[in-house]
C-alpha cells in the first residue's frame, strides 16, 4: 500500500515534461503579507525555484497575547508565491533545526497525490526538494499536511500560491494579500501571556480568535492597507481555516470583479464573497471616494469580538456626488451587530451604590462597546475613537448619554484626532446607560464622576 502510493507520487513527479532542462531558470520572489510579488511579465514558461523554510516561534496574537505560530517563511499566512501557468516549479522545503515538528507542504496548485505532501515531509534540520508543473491557473491555498493536520493548520501553516494565467491578470494599481484564520487558545480572547493551542476548542470549532493575517490588528492602525482615490485595488483573499468559512466583505465597497473561489469564473458587483476554509477568492474594486474601508468577515461577531477586522485607508479628494458623508441614512452600518441585549444573561438587579454601578457597567461595556472601543478603551485609530482619557467624554456627560441613545456620525474630535465614522444607537435601558458611563468615567484614565438613570431619562426625547 505504502509502496504503491510512493510509486504513484514518483510517477506524477516524473510526468513533468523532460524539456524542463531547456527552460530558463529563475528564483521566485516571495513576499510576506500583506504584500504581493510583482506581476509576471515574461510570456514563456520557466523553471522557477522556490525555497520556503518552516519555523516554530512565538509571535504576537493581540496586544499582550502571544502564541507559538508554526509558519512557512516566518509569517502567517506564509510567503506569497507567484508563478505562471505552464511553469515548472522546483520546490525546496527546509525545516528549521530548532523545530520540534516535522512539516510538509500540500500545494492545492499541484495535481498529484497529496499535492506534494509525501515528497516534502521534512524532519527538523533537514530539507526536501521536489518538482511539479503548474497546469491550472488560479489562486490556490498551500498548507502543512502533517498529522495532526488540524493542529499544524491551526497554528498558522498556510499561505497562497497564485498561478497566473498565460495572458496575465488585468492590470491594477495595487495588490494585497489577506488570509483569514481561526485560532484556538487556552485563555479566552484577550487573556494575556503566551497562550497554548486548545485542542478541545479546535475540535468543537469554537475559536477565540478569527483574524486576518495571523493577528488582531495586523491590518489596522499604521499597518492598514493604503490606496488612493481613483485607483483599482486587487485583494488576493485566502482562508486557512482550519474550521470556519469566511463571508468576506469590505464595509463601504462593492467588489467590481470577483474571481469566484480563486478560479476562472468572474462575477461582478458583489457585496460579500464566500471564502471556504482551504480556499480563496480574488476581488478587485475601483476606489471612488476617500475614507477608511473596513475589511471584515461578515459573520460579524468574528469581526467585532474575535479580531477579523482590517482597514483599507483611501486618501484623496472627496466626491460628494458618490458619497455624502453627512447624510446618516447613506451610511453602511454593520447592521447594529454590536447592539447586543444583555437580557437573559444578566439578572435584572439595580445597582445600590457607585461601586456596584461600576461593576455592572463593566459587563455592559464588555458586551456592547468593547468590540469597537477595545478592551482598554483605546479604540482603533482611524475607525473607533478612544473612550480612555477621552476629552470628549469627560467634557459633557449629557452629550455622552446622547451618543449612546442616538448614536453618532459625522466628524468628531477626540483627543485631537478627528473621527468621521458611525456609532449605531445602542438599545440599552436608562440604568444600563448610567452604569456603563459611570464605569467609563471611573476607569481607563478618565476623570471620575457618576451618571444617574434620571439624567439618562432626561436626555430621551
Amino acid at each position: 500500500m505504502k509502496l504503491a502510493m510512493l510509486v504513484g507520487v514518483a510517477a506524477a513527479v516524473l510526468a513533468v515534461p523532460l524539456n524542463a532542462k531547456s527552460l530558463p531558470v529563475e528564483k521566485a520572489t516571495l513576499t510576506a503579507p500583506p504584500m504581493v510579488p510583482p506581476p509576471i511579465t515574461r510570456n514563456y514558461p520557466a523553471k522557477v525555484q522556490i525555497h520556503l523554510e518552516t519555523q516554530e516561534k512565538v509571535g504576537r496574537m493581540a496586544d499582550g497575547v502571544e502564541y507559538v505560530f508554526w509558519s512557512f517563511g516566518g509569517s502567517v499566512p506564509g510567503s506569497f508565491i507567484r508563478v505562471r501557468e505552464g511553469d515548472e516549479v522546483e520546490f525546496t522545503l527546509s525545516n528549521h533545526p530548532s523545530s520540534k515538528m516535522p512539516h510538509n507542504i500540500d500545494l492545492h496548485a499541484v495535481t498529484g497525490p497529496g499535492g506534494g505532501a509525501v515528497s516534502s515531509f521534512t524532519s527538523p534540520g533537514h530539507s526536501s526538494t521536489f518538482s511539479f508543473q503548474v497546469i491550472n491557473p488560479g489562486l490556490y491555498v498551500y498548507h502543512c499536511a502533517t498529522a495532526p493536520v488540524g493542529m499544524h493548520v491551526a497554528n498558522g501553516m498556510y499561505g497562497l500560491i497564485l498561478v497566473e494565467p498565460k495572458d496575465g491578470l488585468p492590470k491594477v494599481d495595487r495588490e494585497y494579500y489577506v488570509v483569514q484564520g481561526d485560532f484556538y487558545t487556552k485563555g479566552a480572547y484577550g487573556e494575556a501571556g503566551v497562550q497554548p493551542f486548545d485542542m478541545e476548542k479546535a475540535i468543537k470549532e469554537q475559536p477565540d480568535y478569527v483574524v486576518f493575517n495571523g493577528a488582531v490588528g495586523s491590518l489596522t492602525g499604521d499597518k492598514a492597507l493604503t490606496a488612493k482615490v481613483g485607483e483599482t485595488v486587487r485583494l488576493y483573499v485566502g482562508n486557512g481555516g482550519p474550521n470556519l468559512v469566511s463571508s468576506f466583505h469590505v464595509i463601504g465597497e462593492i467588489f467590481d470583479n470577483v474571481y469566484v473561489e480563486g478560479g476562472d469564473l468572474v462575477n461582478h458587483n458583489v457585496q460579500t464573497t464566500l471564502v471556504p476554509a482551504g480556499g480563496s477568492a480574488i476581488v478587485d474594486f475601483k476606489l471612488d471616494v476617500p475614507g477608511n474601508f473596513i475589511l471584515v468577515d461578515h459573520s460579524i461577531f468574528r469581526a467585532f469580538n474575535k479580531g477579523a477586522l482590517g482597514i483599507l485607508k483611501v486618501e484623496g479628494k472627496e466626491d460628494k456626488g458618490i458619497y455624502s458623508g453627512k447624510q446618516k441614512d447613506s451610511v453602511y452600518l454593520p447592521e447594529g451587530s454590536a447592539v447586543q441585549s444583555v437580557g437573559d444573561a444578566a439578572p435584572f438587579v439595580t445597582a445600590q451604590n457607585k461601586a456596584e454601578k461600576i461593576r455592572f457597567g463593566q459587563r455592559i461595556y464588555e458586551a456592547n462597546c468593547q468590540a469597537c472601543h477595545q478592551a482598554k478603551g483605546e479604540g482603533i485609530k482611524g475607525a473607533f475613537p478612544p473612550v480612555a482619557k477621552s476629552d470628549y467624554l469627560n467634557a459633557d456627560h449629557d452629550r455622552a448619554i446622547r451618543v449612546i441613545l442616538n448614536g453618532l456620525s459625522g466628524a468628531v474630535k477626540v483627543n485631537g484626532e478627528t473621527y468621521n465614522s458611525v456609532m449605531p444607537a445602542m438599545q440599552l435601558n436608562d440604568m444600563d446607560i448610567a452604569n456603563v458611563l459611570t464605569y467609563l468615567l471611573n476607569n481607563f484614565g478618565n476623570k471620575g464622576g457618576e451618571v444617574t438613570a434620571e439624567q439618562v431619562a432626561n436626555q430621551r426625547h
Partner: protein
Amino acid sequence: MFITTLWLSLAGQMQPIDAGEYRPLYLKADTPYVQVQSFQLDAAPVTNQAYFEFVQAQTKWQKQNVPSIFAEHNYLQHWLLQNGQYQPSQHQLNTPVTNVSWFAAQAYCQAQGKVLPTVDQWEYVALASEHQANGSIEGDFHQKILAWYSKPTPTQLPEIMQNPANYWGVYDMHGLVWEWTLDFNSALVNGESRNDASLDAKLFCGAGAASSADPKDYAAFMRFGFRSSLQAHFTSSNLGFRCAAATNYSKD
C-alpha cells in the same frame, strides 16, 4: 572532573515495568490491544555526561570519528571542542543528550547490555500519568503533553528529573525531548498488521483520525509523525533517547 551524585546515579537506574496491554493509535477502535511483556526502562533520558563517558570508552563514536552514514554532520553539534576533544559544557552535564543518531543511541545501549525500547514499550510507559498506568483517562492528560509539543525548543534544555516521575517511577517521558525507539521507522519499512489503514493516510490527511483508537490523542499522532520523518543517521537538537532491557537484566 565529574561530580557523581546519588541523584545522577539514579538517572542511569532502570525501573521495572509490569506486563500489560495498550492500544496503539494507528489501530481501529475494534482492533485488539497490543500485549507488552514486562521489561525494564531507564528512569530518565541518557544525559550528556553519561554519553560523554561512553564516547571516551568507545572512541569511534566521538564526533570527529563517526562516519556520516552513521550520524549526519550535526551529530553532537552542541558540544565544544576543548583540548582536541568534543565535550559537553558544565551546565549541559545533567541535561539529556541530543543530536545523536539512531545508530549512536543503539550503540550506547548495547555497550551496557541494553537496547532501545520498542515503540510499543515506549508508548506503553508514556501512557502513564503520575498516579495511573493509563493516564489518558485523566481529563487534561493530552492537553498537558500537547502544551510541550507546541512550545519552541529552548536554547538550553532543562536538566533531567525536574518533574515528578510517572506511575512506573519513570521520569521525563513527556515535556523534555523526543526519544529514539528501536523500531521508529518500522511503519515505513513493513506495512504488515496495518490492514486497511495506511500510514500515509494517518500522516497526510485528516482521515487518519477517523480510524484511530482515540481521535483526541493528537499527542500520539505527533510522535508517530515525528518518528516517521526520521532516518537512522538523522540527528536533531530535541531528540534524545533512553535504553530498555529484559526483566532479568542487572547492572554488573
